[in-house]
C-alpha cells in the first residue's frame, strides 16, 4: 500500500508539519549562534558605534587552550557531568519505578517532586548555600554532631564538589524520574507476563524487559541532562563562586565571566563555542553508543 506516490505525499505532509518548528528555531537561534561563533575568531573592541571587529584571529582559542583555568574548568565540568548524570539516572529510574509501584499517595509524592524542579535555580542555590553555611548552616550543624571536626563544606575542594552535586541531584532527579515514568507506564503488560511465564525474577524482569523498553526515553533524558549539567552555572555562581581556589569553576562560569565581567566578547565566544563543540561531541558519542534513534529509517524501536 505504500505506493511511491503515497510515500511522496506523506513526506510532503511531513515537511509541512515539521516546518513551523524548524522555522521558529532557525529564525531565532541561527543568527545568535553564528554570530557568537564568528566573534570567537575575532578581536573585537567596543566603541561608541557599537562592536568593531579589529582583527580576525585564532588568538582567543590559543589563549584558551594554553590557560590552566580552562583546563581545570574542563576537567571539573566533565567529571561533574558524568557523576551527577549517572547518579541522577540511577536514582531517577529508582524513583520512577517506585512511583509506578506505589499504591498510596502517588499524586502527593509526584506533586512534591515537582517543587524542587520548578524552583528558581538561583533560589535553590541560595537555599543550599544557607544549609551549608559554615557558621549556622543546618547541614554543618548536623555534621558537627557526627564528626569531631566537621569540614568547612564549601571551603574544602572535595566536600564543596560533593555538596554542589547533592544540591543538583536534589533538584533534577525528579526531571529524570518523570521522563522515565512516562516511558515506564507505556510498557505493554504482555511483556511482563511473558517474562513471568519464563519464570524471570523481579530483577531479571527489570533488566531484560524494563530497561530495554526504556531506552528511547532514557536516551532523551540523559542527552538533555548532559546538556544542562555541562552548562552548569547558577549553582557554583551562588554557592562557591568557583572556589575554593578554582575547584568548582565550570566552563559556563568561565565563559560568563569573560563575556559579562571582563567584557571580552571574543574570548567569551571562544569558550562558549568550544563548550558547544565538546557537548556536541559527547552527545553524538552517547547516541552512537546508545544506538538510538538518529537513523534515517527511524525504525529503531525499543527492541
Amino acid at each position, binding site marked *: 500500500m505504500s505506493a511511491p506516490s503515497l510515500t511522496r505525499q506523506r513526506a510532503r505532509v511531513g515537511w509541512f508539519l515539521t516546518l513551523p518548528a524548524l522555522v521558529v528555531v*532557525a529564525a531565532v537561534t*541561527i*543568527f545568535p*549562534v*553564528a*554570530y557568537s*561563533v*564568528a566573534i570567537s575568531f575575532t578581536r573585537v*573592541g*567596543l*566603541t*561608541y*558605534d*557599537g*562592536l*568593531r*571587529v579589529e582583527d*580576525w584571529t585564532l588568538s582567543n582559542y590559543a*589563549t*584558551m587552550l594554553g*590557560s590552566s*583555568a*580552562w583546563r581545570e574548568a574542563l576537567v571539573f565540568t566533565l567529571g561533574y557531568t558524568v557523576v551527577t548524570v549517572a547518579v541522577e539516572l540511577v536514582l531517577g529510574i529508582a524513583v520512577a519505578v517506585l512511583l509506578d509501584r506505589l499504591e498510596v499517595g502517588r499524586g502527593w509524592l509526584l506533586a512534591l517532586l515537582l517543587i524542587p524542579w520548578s524552583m528558581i535555580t538561583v533560589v535553590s542555590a541560595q537555599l543550599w548555600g544557607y544549609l551549608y*553555611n*559554615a*557558621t*549556622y548552616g543546618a547541614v554543618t550543624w548536623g555534621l558537627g554532631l557526627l564528626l569531631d571536626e566537621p569540614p*568547612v*563544606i*564549601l*571551603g*574544602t*575542594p572535595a566536600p564543596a564538589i560533593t555538596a554542589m552535586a547533592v544540591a543538583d541531584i536534589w533538584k533534577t532527579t525528579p526531571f529524570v524520574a518523570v521522563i522515565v515514568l512516562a516511558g515506564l507506564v507505556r510498557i505493554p503488560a504482555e511483556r511482563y507476563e511473558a517474562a513471568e511465564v519464563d519464570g524471570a525474577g523481579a530483577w531479571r524482569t527489570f533488566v531484560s524487559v524494563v530497561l530495554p523498553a526504556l531506552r528511547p526515553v532514557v536516551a532523551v533524558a540523559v542527552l538533555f541532562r548532559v546538556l544542562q549539567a555541562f552548562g552548569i552555572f547558577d549553582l557554583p555562581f551562588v554557592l*562557591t*563562586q*568557583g*572556589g*575554593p*581556589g*578554582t575547584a568548582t569553576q565550570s566552563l559556563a562560569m*568561565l565563559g560568563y*565571566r*569573560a563575556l*559579562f*565581567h*571582563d*567584557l*571580552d566578547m571574543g*574570548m567569551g565566544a571562544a*569558550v562558549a563555542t568550544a563548550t558547544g563543540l565538546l557537548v556536541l561531541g559527547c552527545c*553524538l558519542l552517547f*547516541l*552512537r553508543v546508545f*544506538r*538510538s534513534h*538518529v*537513523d*534515517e529509517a527511524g525504525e529503531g524501536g525499543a527492541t
Partner: protein
Amino acid sequence: MALRRRSLLTAGVGVGVGVAALAGCGGGRGGAPDLARAAEVPRGEVTVRWWSFPMATGDGRDLRTLLIDAFRRHHPTITVETVDAPAVTDVSRAVLATAVAGGAASPDLYLGDVAWPAQFAHNALALPLDSVVGAGYWDAYPEPLVRAVGHAGDSYAFPFYVDQAYLYYRRDLLDRHGLAVPGSWEELAEAVRVVTRAGDAEYGLAFQGAVYEGLTANVAEFVADAGGAILDEEGTRVTLGGRSGERALTFLRDLVADGVAPRAVGTFREQDSTDAFVGGRALFLRNWAYVWGVVEAPDSPVAGRVGAVPRPGFADGAAAGHGCLGGWCNFVNPHSEQPGAAVAFARFCAEEEAQVIMMRNTSYLPALTAVRAGAEARRSSTPVLAAADEVRLVARPTGTPHYPQVSKALATHVNTLLTGGATPAEALAHARDGIAAALEGTAL
C-alpha cells in the same frame, strides 16, 4: 547506522550559513557622543531614567525620592524616573554593558561601582566628563576617588557615595579583659589569644576570604599595610611582590593557621563575616561602613557593645589606617538622548546639597571632601562617619580596564592560600603571573 557523516554535514551547513555575512556586523549606531549637548541643561520638559537601587533612609523612605524632589526644585522641567537595578553588582554590570554596548538610550544615567570607570571608559560605555564640567571640578573630592573615576586622561563618573573599610570590635569583651583597642595587627592577634582562650569568643578576626572581589579588597589593604601596592599608578605593571607582598600573604596565611581567623574564612563574604560578628562569635570584624547600621540595629544582639576604628597597621610597617575605597558613582550613558539633563542630575547628586541630604538621612558616607571632613560629619555620633576622613583610602587595582581579570587572579590564588592549598610564596608567584597575563589581556 546511527549517525551518518552526511547528517552532520548537512546540519552544519545550516548553522554555518550566516557566518560569512557576519564580518564586522555590530550593534549600536550611536556615534561619538555630543559633549557640547551634554554640558547644556535642556529647556523643555524632559524625562531621564536613572538605573539605581533603593537606599533606605532612617525613617524608612528611599533616598532616591528625597534627591529627586530636591533636584526638581532647581530643575522643575526635568523628570527623573528610577529603574531598579539588580542587587548583585556583577549582574547589574552584565545588563548595563549589554544594553549600552548595544546602543540603548535608556537608562540615561546609571549608578555603577567605583571599580568600573577604567573598564567602562575603555569599552565606550560611559560619557567622558572632563570637557563637560571642567577638569578642576574633581578637586573637591578625595584624591584616590578622583583617580578611580579617571582613565587615560579623562573622567567618567560623578562620585555619589563612598564605602570604606573599618575594624569593628567588641568593646565589652576588650573591657572585660582590660585590653585596649589594638593599634597594630600584632596587638590584635594577642588580644584574640587572650579572649578566645578565656572562651569569650569563638573566633578572633572575621574578614572576607571567599573567591570574589571582596577578597581583592582585603588583600589590597594588607599589601598597603605592608608598604606595597598591587599595580603601579598607571595600572599597567604588577608591583605586588617582594617583601611587602610576602609579608601580607604570610600574615593572611598565619591568621588562619594560628586560629586568629576562623577556618571557614575562605568561604566568607560580607554577610557571613557580619553574621559571625553580630551573632557574638567573633571579637573583631573587618568590613565596610554599612555594617555599623547592622550591628546597631534594634534587634542586634551586640548593639551598644561595639566600636569601629580605622584598620590598624603592622607594628613596624607603613602607616596604619588603610581602608579599601568602595562606593558608587553616577555614569552617563553615551547614547542618552538627554545627556544634558542626565549630567545635570548626576552632577547634582555629587554636590553639596545632595551630599548633605544623604549624610543626614542615610548611613551612606558622602564623597564630597567638604561634607566628609566637615564639622557636621566629625561631630556625628556614628563613628564610621565621624572618622570618615581619617581612613587612608586604598584603591583596588582598578586603574586597568582588565580589573575583573586582575581581581580574579588575585582572589583565586589568595583563596587557595587561605584554604590551605598553597604556600605564601607559591600563591604570590601564581598571583603575579595571573595578574601579568590579565594586564596583557590574555587571562581567562
